[in-house]
């Protein structure tokens, strides 16, 4: 190819790239209205790499009614509990965790004639969030059973106090407690803000936002300033694609830090924290007069990796548990919906299995004296 034509081709390539970048921004623009929760799938695809701060600012308004609904979810203050209709002579059970746990709550309410279910959840909630919620739950005393959910695909993120640091797909502003496992048990670090109001105030004040980011940078191994903070490059589709790729690369590296070919690494911080949380939860729940139960959700493709690293703690602390791999094959894609939840039928199966687990764990009612 003559040099002149080669240079012209390179110039045209760059021009076309700019045109495609611009066209993608215009044709697949992400809706500006935070209340619009159904963006076009392609618009969503091209927006994934936008900085977390950029996405949060777009979704957030001081007036909760004008902000994106997702910005309201998962806050510790106030802690929102969903109480389902009580059953005659029923026993109340509270489940803390992610959407999988909330689906189990619905299924358990339907499938069991004994247990009425209360739930406290957040989208994508990790076990540290769930335990933080349990500790803050003022009404937990009304439940005889407390179920804490943990999921294999988010086990490594148990060391993160902010989903915005690790969940690069969805902008979730809520925060969680950061737990640090030590020789003497666990240390709890509350996040810099834990309510929607405080979050909005922090986001709107540059100094507070900078301080909060500095706190996350110090305490969250998932925090990456390049992925979180907003820059003018957010306006380029191509740059967003590159950032998305780098985010995924970073996520893989962090996930691999907790899991290798043999499963989760027992010496990783995530596994140590998970085991410490199970032990602490078991003791605290019992001290509160409750039966502690662990709901271990096996994500597709993870086998029984999760159970294998927490089995020791479950047995040592004599905690009742339901590990989903005992009911559903975690290698069977048809057992799951496209959004990673179990199918409705499988949730019902799990609910029945959970009811049996609680039956066995509940202290037997006092026997009537013989005549």
């Amino acid at each position, binding site marked *: *190819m003559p040099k002149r034509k*080669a240079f*012209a081709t390179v110039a045209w390539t760059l021009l*076309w790239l700019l045109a495609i970048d611009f066209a993608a921004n215009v044709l697949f623009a992400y809706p500006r209205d935070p209340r619009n929760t159904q963006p076009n799938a392609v618009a969503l695809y091209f927006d994934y790499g936008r900085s977390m701060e950029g996405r949060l600012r777009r979704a957030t308004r001081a007036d909760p009614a004008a902000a994106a609904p997702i910005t309201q979810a998962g806050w510790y203050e106030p802690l929102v509990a969903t109480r389902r209709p009580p059953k005659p002579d029923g026993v109340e059970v509270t489940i803390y965790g992610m959407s999988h746990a909330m689906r189990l709550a619905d299924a358990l309410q339907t499938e069991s004639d004994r247990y009425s279910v209360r739930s406290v959840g957040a989208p994508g909630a990790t076990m540290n969030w769930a335990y933080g919620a349990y500790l803050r739950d003022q009404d937990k005393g009304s439940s005889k059973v407390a179920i804490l959910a943990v999921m294999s695909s988010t086990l490594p993120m148990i060391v993160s106090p902010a989903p915005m640091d690790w969940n690069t797909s969805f902008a979730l502003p809520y925060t969680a407690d950061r737990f640090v496992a030590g020789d003497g048990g666990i240390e709890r670090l509350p996040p810099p803000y834990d309510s929607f109001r405080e979050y909005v105030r922090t986001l709107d004040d540059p100094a507070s936002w900078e301080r909060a980011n500095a706190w996350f940078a110090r305490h969250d191994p998932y925090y990456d300033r390049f992925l979180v903070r907003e820059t003018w490059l957010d306006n380029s589709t191509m740059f967003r694609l590159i950032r998305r*790729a780098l985010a995924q690369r970073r996520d893989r590296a962090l996930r691999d830090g907790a899991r*290798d070919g043999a499963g989760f690494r027992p010496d990783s911080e995530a596994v140590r924290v998970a085991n410490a949380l199970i032990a602490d939860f078991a003791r605290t729940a019992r001290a509160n007069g409750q039966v502690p139960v662990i709901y271990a959700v096996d994500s597709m493709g993870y086998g029984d990796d999760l159970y294998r690293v927490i089995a020791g703690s479950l047995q040592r602390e004599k905690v009742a548990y339901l590990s989903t791999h005992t009911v559903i094959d975690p290698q*069977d*894609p048809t057992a799951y919906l496209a959004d990673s939840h179990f199918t409705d039928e499988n949730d019902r199966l799990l609910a029945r299995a959970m009811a049996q687990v609680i039956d066995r764990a509940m202290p037997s009612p006092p026997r009537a004296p013989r005549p």
Partner: protein
Amino acid sequence: MSPLDNVGRPGGADRGTQAGMLFNSLEFLVFLAVVYGLYRVLPFRGQNWMLLVASYVFYGWWDWRFLFLMILSTSVDFWTGLVLDRGHLARRQVLIPAAFLSAAAILLIGFDFSALLHWLAGKPVAGPLISSAMPQVLLGIPLFAAVAATGYHILVRLPADRRRLACMIVSIVVQLSILAVFKYFNFFIDSLVTALNASGIEATARHFDIVLPVGLSFYTFQSMSYAIDIYRREIKPTDRFFDFALFVAFFPQLVAGPIQRAHTLLPQMASPRVITFDDSMRGLFLIVFGLFKKVAIADGIAATANQAFAMPNATWGTIVAGTLAFAVQIYCDFSGYSDIARGVAKLFGVDLMVNFNQPYFAKSPREFWQRWHISLSTWLSDYLYKSLGGNRGTLAFTCRNLMLTMLLGGLWHGAAWNYVLWGFYHGTVLCAHRVLRERLGAARDTVVSGTAKILGFGLITLYGWLLFRATSLQQVLSFSHTLLTGEGGLTINTARPGLSAAIGVALLAVWELAQYRSGGEARFYRRLPAPVIGLAAALMVFLTLMGTSNEPAQFIYFQF
């Protein structure tokens, strides 16, 4: 361990993968920039030294220990090549490789080389620097030297013809032994035990924890062809050990080909290379094109194939969708790798052979193998099929040779029976085609008959990919049964391809059709106006960027 469970499980989960320097990684981009920069400022000999070191670093990124294996293979073939042709070795031809090999043994096996690098960089080292194998290494070096010296004295005393033959056999035996141990040992043991158990003799398999070194099948075949070509008097051996080492280890084609022949690559290593503007532009285009195929398409469609082949009870629709996806994935993955390898080599002024020439446009099995993995099929044809007698005999004799070649070609891909079955399947198809052509003669194609042949043979190829991708013989049987009975109908349960793959496949189809219509000329696009080429390149870059969000998978052919 089956290779299917190993390194390159197509698009596989992140379990059990070796961390290497993939062409589509940030590490490789930096590595290439540094190597290219150094290359442009160094004189010819310096370029060769630097490329050799870079190639070893590139390979060592997977596992430093396996580098020793390559240096052993290189040294043995360098010596046998010279003794074969000249009947003797000059002192420096003995001492330089011997010193190099000994140093490699001590550094790479005797020490924990990764720990050693950490220690040299001042980083904390967890384990001991000296490995437990150091005593064996120190004992092995003089032992190897004694065996080699004895062998040498026996060989040089033989008459020329017998010496030539013996040297070639030594080379083949050494290379095949390395392959047999590292690639096939557990497979053969398992198969033997299964056969014994089936015949009523109780036996249990003792497994060795052998990891398949990446690219082993590629560089051993490349080395082997060197000795065979010298034996056939098609080339002269090189005097320069490090030129030969660079021929074996040249990083762009080291781990997944194309398998180069000494008569094309070695002269390019032995004399100064010229980098033309045209070559550089072509090289850059090949890199962009290869990354587009790999990142945008192959990685984007991997989940579709993987999920389909992971299902215990897949429907008819799922099996068809999964197999189609795998056909696209393996083509884009492997040809993409070859394109990048050729493109990178061109940046250094080195020409590598074309490895793929629009294989899915093949109208017959014979044509398919002239278009698919050309460097392997020509290797097998030149060194196996023709050595067996080729088509110089009856039809039955030709078919026997075709079948043996394809069976071994299948086995080359991996130590598992489904690869052997895949080879047998293609051997049968080749033989059937041969017989039909003998009986019916070669018909002249019209557009309609040509298209029908492409589509018809496409179906045959697709079923071959099902055999290739299946995870067990049981799955082959169950999937074949479903295909015949139509169980589950058109319901498709597997993952949808990524957006980059969906658009990328359409763009690639247009591109390949345009190339096919222009007579198959790979550089057909140069005749197009600059804005059109620019648009195609921009789309490829954009789709590649979209594909970077896909879960990156190892290149499939790394496992072979």
